[in-house]
């Protein structure tokens, strides 16, 4: 797609003209993230996080490919090969800490990216497909992160693998055979470690492919913006390059400072000490917890403590945990308000902040042992989580009266837009934009 006023790629050098005729790759890049992509001029810093997520995917693939040259996916030596990387491989500690903390950074960035989308209504028409592909990326990331955590073959690796694959055993009839099939045995062992390694290497490339689709789908309607008002004219946009390459460059710098601080000065803050104990099938850790980025969903899983309508509590927990993520696929049709941005949605905005707090509480509870009162707090927080997406959003979007909105992005930025004049007939112009079908 492009807006009619988008800059055209005009190579001046004969070599580039020749290349443009044979394989217009530079043109493709120019139109994707160069001067040929017009972007709303009013994007705030929350719009930096898509680029940061892409950057982290590249960091993870690069460090991961090199780590795989030194790591041995065999249950007998996996733990020691990880320590070999830490001790004997040149800069191995930097690669491994960079990769382990890189996973956390990737999730931090993606969580901010998701919540930005939630607040500013980026999931709404005409951008539903971008959102759906984003949820697919997030699911793939969770699978990849989980399998990556198993590879060092420490205590949390082993017991995490056992608990998470054990979730499948809650499925009636086929559950236990399914778990054994997934693991290649009755408990995590060499077969499981090998296949997790293989998939952990494969999935990031599938993520990269879906990221390309995500960006492709983005370029059809173009980027959203904090007002949620669609681009109307050239004065609403600036070319991606140099305006947003410059802004993203600055954002990347700030992010890298944070990332580097974690890698060099606090590389084990986000990990669990038990994973420095080699896997031992005969000794269960006191508290089995996954990595922090799964904690909100782990809290939901553990919130179901009683059987309900003949459904075993464990199965309910598994159903709810998967539903908590899968419901994201339906979000564009659950929230039917024609107004995208939370800025002009007074009621939605309040519930959004409650949701953000709720997810923090769920995350906090998910990292704590399954004791009272943490379980009761998780139950209340889980109730809000489901109620927010499945009950509150559909109702709010039906009853809410949005606040007045500017005519255009230009008016939002400059305070006036010359095109925003009353039509001569005196008829009332559309307050915002036509309702999506």
């Amino acid at each position, binding site marked *: 797609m492009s807006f009619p006023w988008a800059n055209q790629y005009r190579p001046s050098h004969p070599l580039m003209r020749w290349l443009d005729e044979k394989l217009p790759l530079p043109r493709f890049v120019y139109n994707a993230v160069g001067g040929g992509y017009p972007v709303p001029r009013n994007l705030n810093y929350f719009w930096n996080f898509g680029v940061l997520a892409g950057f982290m995917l590249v960091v993870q693939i690069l460090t991961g490919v090199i780590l795989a040259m030194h790591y041995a996916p065999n249950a007998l030596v996996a733990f020691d090969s990880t320590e070999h990387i830490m001790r004997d491989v040149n800069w191995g500690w930097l690669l491994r800490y960079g990769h382990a903390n890189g996973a956390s950074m990737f999730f931090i960035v993606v969580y901010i990216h998701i919540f930005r989308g939630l607040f500013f209504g980026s999931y709404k028409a005409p951008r539903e497909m971008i959102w759906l592909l984003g949820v697919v990326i997030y699911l793939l990331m969770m699978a990849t992160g989980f399998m990556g955590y198993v590879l060092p073959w420490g205590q949390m690796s082993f017991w995490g693998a056992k608990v998470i694959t054990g979730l499948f055993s809650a499925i009636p009839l086929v559950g236990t055979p399914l778990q054994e099939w997934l693991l290649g045995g009755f408990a995590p062992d060499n077969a499981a470690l090998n296949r997790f390694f293989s998939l952990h290497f494969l999935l990031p490339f599938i993520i990269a492919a879906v990221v390309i689709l995500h960006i492709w789908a983005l370029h059809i309607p173009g980027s959203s913006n904090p007002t949620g008002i669609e681009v109307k004219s050239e004065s609403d946009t600036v070319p991606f390059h140099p305006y947003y390459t410059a802004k993203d460059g600055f954002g990347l710098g700030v992010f890298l400072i944070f990332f580097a601080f974690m890698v060099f000065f606090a590389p084990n803050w986000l990990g669990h000490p038990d994973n*420095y104990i080699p896997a031992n099938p005969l000794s269960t850790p006191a508290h089995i917890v996954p990595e922090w980025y799964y904690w909100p969903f782990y809290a939901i899983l553990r919130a179901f403590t009683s059987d309900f309508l003949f459904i075993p509590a464990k199965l309910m927990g598994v159903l709810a945990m998967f*539903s908590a993520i899968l419901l994201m696929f339906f979000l564009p049709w659950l929230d039917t308000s024609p107004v995208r941005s939370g800025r002009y949605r007074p009621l939605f905005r309040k519930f959004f902040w409650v949701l953000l707090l709720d997810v923090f509480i769920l995350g906090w509870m998910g990292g704590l042992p399954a004791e009272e009162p943490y379980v009761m707090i998780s*139950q209340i927080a889980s109730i809000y989580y489901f109620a927010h997406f499945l009950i509150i959003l559909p109702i709010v979007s039906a009853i809410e009266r949005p606040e007045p909105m500017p005519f255009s992005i230009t008016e939002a930025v400059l305070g006036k837009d010359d095109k925003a004049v009353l039509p001569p007939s005196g008829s009332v112009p559309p307050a915002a934009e036509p309702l999506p079908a």
Partner: protein
Amino acid sequence: MVRIFGILAGLFFVAALLWSFVVGAITFAQEGKPATAEHEFHKHPRELHLASDGVFGKFDKQQLQRGFQVYKEVCSACHSLRLVAFRDLHQLGYNEAEVKAIAAGFQVPGVDPNTGEANTRPGLATDYFPKPYANDIAARAANNNAVPPDLSLMTKARHDGPAYVRSLLTGYRNQVGYKNEEGKELLEEFPDVKTPPGLHFNPWFPNLNLAMAPPLTADGQVTYGDGTKATVDQMAKDVAAFLVWTAEPKLAKRHQTGWPVLLFLIALTVLSYYAYQNVWRGVKGNH
């Protein structure tokens, strides 16, 4: 349609969660939180400051050498250090001859070149620290059914690892009459948790009783070459410092590398900020 199904699904999950909550709350109201001795009497590690702490932390080689001496003379009788090689001891400030001499002082598994039979030989600098027991069964048999854990990664494998090691080593107490900070007496509150024979009471250990007998029993148990007085607490601190090094020999290098990287990134970010402002000069956006 999506909304109707959504609301129904939402009500289903909310109802199931409310049911779990009510059942849980009633149980909790009736039974309360079960009090356990571990919960009330397990202590968090005492604060410990080492030269390797913090963002400027470097190893104190003198202390590492003292800690190594404690490991060699006390801990190594039962605990392995399998991820550390004698050659690594260079980093503690020993020269090549000293490393060779230290290695030769340990017997490591070998093979008789004439018969092919397993035997032992003096260690070389390239060898790793040998294990004190042939296997876990032998280790259990000698230690009241507990395997002494490998110490290579101990300070990273426990919360607040170095402080935990020091607290544990100096934390053996007489269980009879033991009171916590609130003045509660353990055996009065929990008469059933009396330390079983063969175990030793130590409130810094997660379940309060461990199989390891107090390893550091008297001041002067080792004689330090540098003249430091070998009190029990000093030995515990030194071995904790040594185990920080064994857990991550590259720790000091990590800190040293981090500063130039951070300073470079800060400079880069400042420049990129001005570049960003420059590009947007005269264009009103959201910046």
